[in-house]
């Protein structure tokens, strides 16, 4: 969502307004790792955004719910000990794990998608990505328009698959 930054708006303002407008936020800290470009630096955006969400919950809305995801168990206790006592959702760096942990974090009465259904939606949307990229005239997934179309296609696919 932060890909959609209207002209002239500061990135930080946009991120914070997005957090404020959402009831829930998911923060995957598994990708806080050194990048390849020199000088090699870790990406701090995710922990920073998590901090904003925690602050918004504590001194802002009081209603916001945030979830921390990690790939490796106990790594969060080492990398971000301030969050000790908060159990992260460990997805193990797999698609299956992400589906499982999303299902653990968010529960819906009645129409709760199963892991198999999530896989079907994933495969369906993934198969449409080349067409979507072509339609948007880009090779990158990290474009606002591509994100919108993928989200919309996912919604349509979920409507047909999850009953």
């Amino acid at each position, binding site marked *: 969502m932060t890909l959609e930054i209207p002209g002239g708006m500061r990135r930080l303002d946009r991120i914070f307004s997005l957090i404020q407008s959402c009831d*829930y936020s998911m923060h995957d800290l598994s990708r806080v790792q050194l990048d390849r470009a020199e000088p090699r630096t870790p990406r701090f955006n995710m922990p920073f955004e998590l901090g904003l969400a925690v602050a918004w919950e504590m001194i802002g809305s009081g209603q916001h*719910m945030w*979830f921390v995801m990690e790939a490796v168990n106990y790594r969060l206790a080492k990398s971000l000990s301030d969050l000790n006592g*908060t*159990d992260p959702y460990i997805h193990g760096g797999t698609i299956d794990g992400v589906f499982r942990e999303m299902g*653990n*974090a*968010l*529960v*819906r*009465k009645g*129409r709760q998608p199963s892991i198999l259904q999530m896989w079907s939606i994933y495969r*369906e*949307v993934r*198969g*449409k990505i080349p*067409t*979507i990229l072509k*339609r948007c005239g880009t090779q990158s997934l990290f474009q606002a328009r591509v994100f*919108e*179309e993928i*989200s*919309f*296609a996912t*919604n*349509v*696919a*979920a*409507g*047909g*698959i*999850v009953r």
Partner: protein
Amino acid sequence: MRRPVVITAPFATPEETARSYGIPKRRANELRKMVEESLAKKGYVFYKVSGKDSAPSKNGASNRASRSGRLRAKVRVNTTVKSKSGNASRRKTTRAKAKPSR
């Protein structure tokens, strides 16, 4: 572990999603058609949203109205399935009746 959050709000419809992202109707319809056709080949049945059914939502009617539209579409799907089997059984009965008359 944290308690899971129970979501009670209904799933957003494709129309609502398109509106929230500002996707133009034509683009949304193209995408929708693409996904629905692909899923239909795999055996998933979609509730048909024809121009007639989507009209109430355009006029700002409540979700209830659009839901009833979807239900109507569902009934239509069921009836076509039934009519197929009905034809088959009718054919059998006519044959069976024809024999004794000869």
